[in-house]
């Protein structure tokens, strides 16, 4: 049994001119201790998927179909109070900007101790001890002293470490990390990635790593889901997706990344841009930009299907029985 199962998730934003379909039929699982990378360009729906799982969708957005199950228990229909207990205790979250995740008016110690005591039955002193341990574990030097500092006294990388410590407070089973390294410099990014990997190994925590950076995914994730226009285009083990992408979008995306030591005159170019939610084309949403498009792609929408060993892609070219154009 998978730790997290998302089945046919659908998120809509009702507007005056009708409902916008932001996530359509998204299904995936995360196993115990696994790092699932979710990659895509802005507007693909990756952050929305994360927000839907922890029940933090911005209204008027709401889940209109599908199920989210954590440890075989549905969590998408829980009350606000019940969900509050799950957040933090079962699912931790790390966001892009560490400054907005921390309260600037409280010392980081106070924020850590408060979070620990909400979820665990500990005295103030015990909670403080745990907070210091956690800070040490995420690599904050002289944690006993730094615990009384305010967020503004830390650098960006150190703040992100504090946010990771906060997410780990109650030993959650799953951490949703939404662009955890995007705001950081490259050398700090490497430190944070190494830290996340180490903590997952030690605590056997599963991670849903949402990012636009294929490099971060390649280094960190076990499996990767590539999203495009609110749907999953391809899922597979990270090595396979990076080396042998199947879906034409993934192929284009990998070719578009400039790489050191890779001498090309021009990068692969996917012309056009991702469609807006109001103008998602009929059939496969990638069809106007796809180099391999054929008649069926313009008519019918493909589901994720078997596309070779270890590969699932939502693309009609892998439909063996079906007609091709």
């Amino acid at each position, binding site marked *: 049994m998978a730790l997290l199962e998302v089945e046919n998730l659908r998120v809509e934003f009702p507007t005056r001119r009708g409902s916008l379909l932001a996530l359509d039929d998204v299904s995936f699982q995360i196993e115990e201790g696994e790092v699932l990378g979710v990659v895509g360009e802005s507007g693909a729906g990756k952050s929305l998927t994360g927000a839907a799982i922890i029940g933090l969708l911005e209204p008027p957005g709401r889940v209109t179909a599908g199920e989210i199950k954590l440890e075989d228990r549905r969590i998408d229909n829980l009350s606000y109070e019940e969900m509050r207990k799950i957040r933090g205790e079962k699912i931790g979250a790390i966001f892009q900007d560490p400054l907005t995740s921390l309260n600037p008016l409280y010392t980081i110690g106070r924020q850590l101790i408060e979070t620990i005591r909400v979820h665990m039955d500990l005295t103030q002193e015990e909670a403080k001890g745990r907070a210091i341990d956690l800070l040490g574990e995420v690599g904050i030097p002289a944690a006993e002293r730094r615990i009384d500092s305010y967020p503004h006294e830390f650098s960006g990388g150190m703040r992100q470490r504090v946010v990771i410590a906060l997410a780990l407070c109650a030993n959650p089973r799953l951490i949703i990390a939404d662009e955890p390294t995007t705001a950081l410099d490259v050398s700090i990014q490497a430190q944070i990635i190494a830290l996340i990997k180490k903590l997952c190994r030690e605590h056997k925590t599963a991670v849903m790593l949402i990012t636009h950076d294929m490099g971060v995914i390649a280094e960190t994730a076990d499996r990767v889901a590539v999203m495009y226009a609110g749907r999953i285009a391809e899922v597979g083990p990270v090595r396979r997706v990076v080396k042998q992408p199947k879906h034409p979008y993934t192929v284009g995306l990998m070719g*578009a990344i400039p790489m050191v030591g890779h001498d090309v005159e021009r990068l692969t170019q996917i012309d056009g841009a991702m469609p807006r939610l109001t103008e998602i084309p009929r059939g496969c949403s990638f069809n106007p930009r796809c180099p391999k498009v054929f008649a069926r792609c313009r008519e019918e929408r493909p589901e994720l299907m078997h596309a070779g060993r270890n590969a699932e892609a939502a693309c009609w070219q892998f439909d063996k029985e079906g007609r091709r154009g």
Partner: protein
Amino acid sequence: MAERSMSKLSSEPLLEVTDLAKHFDVSKPWLARKIEGAQKQILKAVDGLEFKINQGQTFSLVGESGCGKSTVAKLVVGLHKPSRGVIKFEGRNVADAHSRADSAALRRRWQMIFQDPYASLNPRWRVRDIIAEPIRVFGLVKSRDEQIDKVGALLTQVGLSPVDGEKYPHEFSGGQRQRISIARALSSNPEFLVCDEPTSALDVSVQAQILNLMKDLQKEFGLTYLFISHNLAVVYHLSDKIGVMYLGRLCEVAAAKDLFTRPQHPYTRLLLETIPDLEMTGRERVPVAGEVPNPINPPPGCAFHPRCPFANDRCRSEAPTPTERSGHIVACHAAEEGRLPDATFQAPKQPVAS
């Protein structure tokens, strides 16, 4: 636009910068300083930079945030006045262009592309007016019809259509806006473009479109680029020569391929170590401890010494001067004394077998 053809491709430097420095006074107001008995605080954003850019080539500056790379861009186009040093354009000191006509003639020949395409276009202007502004300011066309034709041609050149000129910036996506910025920069027929992180705000597929466009334009018009970026892979893809900056100084300048295969300066090696491994070799990145120190109060001696595994007493007290060693210009005592182990960086190869 025939006047800026490929014919002038030569090896003479188009831009030459010597001992360039920019210091900002970040002290508290005078009275507060007197009351607290505090000293003046000077932020040395750029301190003693030297580089040359040859005609038709791309020179890139890389470094982490706060290293002063954007300040260099602003100094070069004249948005900041240098505290010290000389900027020469075609062998002529830019500071000598005193008269309005003189400096306008120079300024027409270089343009800048900014990072944020949402902030760099006036939201109340139509795109055609945005692109036509440099044409009008420098008086490059005689009639209104000619101006309309030229704007249409520029829009086509950057991959948009002439009718897009009627629209406002908000009607475009980030990538399209960056195309508009490029069209505006090209409208005064410049020879030299300063690009400050032009693709950092864009998605990878859009970034590829813009980088391809920049390469195409360079070939077509023989443009010279000063390219500022924190992304090493982008820099590798685009540059002929690369300068690595750390806390306002250049650590290493070398030809692009060479810098990546035989990095000399320990900081360059650190940066190369942080490139994510898309080759899936299973190489574990060795994260380097420490962060960039506060530039108001940089460490004495070599600014990199607190993070450097090869630092000794000399590094802690004496700032290194850039010296040339086997084609690289390196500012490092350890490299000079031959204390550095040889490092050949294994460049990953093409990962996609499509």
